């Protein structure tokens, strides 16, 4: 898995150090700044793949950092961390130029998955790219004709299944958590009390993976799902 260079701007020293350890443990490179000014200096002087910025920072606050960065033309993806979770706060965080928003307390796996999703944006199949064809391995999707084929065989999908597969195809080989799927496929950010996403995935698997080898939709334990060819070496 390709490693990311991450800058963490977080004033809670312990939280920042756990985050760095977790990132390094997962094969990434992380730097830390404990206040907005230092963070801004670092972000401006080096290049990072993604920034994690706490919303409330001493001195220059998180939103101020993002605003300044964007004003100077820095386009590095930003994940905003916040202790505030209501809709308005989120909207505000995204409006100043944040790319994703995660409310504390969060699971590390959620943070990691979101960072990876943010850094792969510039790559093929990227969420923003105006493509009409998405493919992964022997699976292909025609967005205009709304057709899905695997190994040349046509697969019929319900609209929701189509949308779910589209999101997976736009993030190949990346972990997508259940919350991310609910957000990207249904545009809801609430907390379903049961694992409804699992049921949708298992329906999709019936159509995509049951009659084909190898299975492409992988369960990532403790995190979520990924479209990925199973690791032969493991």
């Amino acid at each position, binding site marked *: 898995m390709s490693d990311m260079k991450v800058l963490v701007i977080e004033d809670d020293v312990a939280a920042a150090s756990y985050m760095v350890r977790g990132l390094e443990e997962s094969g990434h490179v992380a730097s830390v700044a404990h206040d907005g000014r230092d963070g801004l200096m670092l972000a401006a002087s080096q290049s990072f793949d993604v920034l994690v910025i706490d919303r409330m920072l001493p001195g220059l606050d998180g939103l101020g950092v993002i605003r300044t960065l964007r004003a100077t033309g820095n386009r590095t993806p930003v994940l905003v961390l916040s202790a505030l979770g209501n*809709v308005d706060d989120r*909207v505000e965080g995204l409006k100043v130029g944040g790319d994703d928003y995660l409310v504390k307390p969060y699971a590390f796996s959620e943070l990691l998955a979101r960072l990876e999703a943010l850094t792969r944006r510039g790559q093929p199949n990227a969420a923003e790219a105006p493509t009409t064809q998405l493919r992964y391995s022997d699976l292909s999707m025609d967005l205009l004709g709304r057709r899905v084929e695997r190994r040349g065989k046509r697969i019929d999908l319900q609209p929701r299944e189509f949308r779910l597969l589209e999101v997976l195809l736009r993030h190949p080989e990346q972990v997508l958590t259940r919350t991310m799927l609910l957000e990207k496929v249904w545009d809801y950010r609430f907390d379903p*009390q049961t694992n409804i996403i699992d049921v949708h995935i298992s329906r999709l698997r019936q159509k995509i993976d049951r009659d084909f080898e190898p299975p492409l939709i992988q369960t990532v334990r403790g995190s979520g799902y990924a479209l990925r060819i199973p690791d032969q070496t493991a």
Partner: protein
Amino acid sequence: MERQTEETIEAELTGLREQYRDLGIFGLRRIIAQRGAEEEQLASIYLLTNRLGEPIAGNLLTWPTDVETVSNRIRFSLDDPDRSGTRRYLGRSVELDQGYLLVARDIEDKLRTQALLVNAIALGSGLMLVFGVIGGFVMSRWMLTRIESINRATGQIMAGDLGRRIAVDGSGDEFDELAANLNAMLERIERLLAGMREVTDNIAHDLRTPLTRLRSRLEVALMKDIDPSSTRQLLEETAADAEGLIATFNALMNIARAEAGEQRASWELVDLGELAQDIFDLYEPLAEERDMRLALESTAGIKVAGNRQMLAQALANLIDNAIKYTPEGGRIALSVAQTREQARRIARLTVTDNGPGIPVELRGKALERFVRLEPERHTPGNGLGLSLVSAVAKLHDARLELADNNPGLRVSLVFERPVDTAPPGG
């Protein structure tokens, strides 16, 4: 007129004495120094001295001279260079083990207003001498009484008697309006406080157990003679505990947020039909897996102003309950309809099931936080789902109805003011 000044001074002294008892002379000194420093205009006087009367903290350099003592109150005057000349004060002093404490208020303005009012009465309307004087006197006496009663009530409320309300005499004048507004504000503050108290009680109750479990797990994991493999398992269990705690905490936060009602800035026009369709899509596979039929019946174009995420969460909670409490093979229906109720247009969002239902006498209780009706707790849950639905309903001025579906439960959110987007006659 001076009654409420006395009462606030009294209340303040009580508070300060408590601080003295809890924090000692140094704590009190800090508080007095701070309060003194906040007073730019000497509207309030604070002075703490030692046993010899030498000042320790406060905004007066010496104990005032020429003090007139009436029962336990004192009056004195001070020269104020910043403002015009001498100002009169009313205060109280108390003896502490280690010194003396004086708290006083500037009553100059009050005394002047009183004098002005008295003058106004005296000078008022030259022509209607007798009548005018009496009328003016009565008028200003009456105004004074009203202001005084409002002031007294607010004084007592500030001193901690939150249940108190200001008298409204029904005359509908400005004073009445002011009193009614103040009362409405007090009502809201009291409700928020009560809500907070209830939440804290429940949090204490429901979070303490898992927190204790979490701590003991960690403590066991930290014991040195434990083998690494069970440490790992203990840590995994602890992580699961923490996750459960966070879920409960988030649910509580959502309820609190809906109850605080501050999210109107992010409101949008929510199409109830679309919302129902979305939630239907989301839950239909789960229902099917449980061998249940989930049906949807909705009319297009019924919209309400609201918070889409919260409404979705509320509806999801209802469907979640229906699926959870209805035995396999059950039938669940989701519907959106616009009807008329006493010539008013209303929108109804309804979820029905044919499960065991909730007995009528327990329906109110089921909405309370952390209340679960089945004692054995077969099913997972915190008893927060319906509390959120109820809070979201209130936030949207919607009525929440729990009724019998014969058999089963019928829950409706009734919006009294749907937005009119339907074509005329439709």
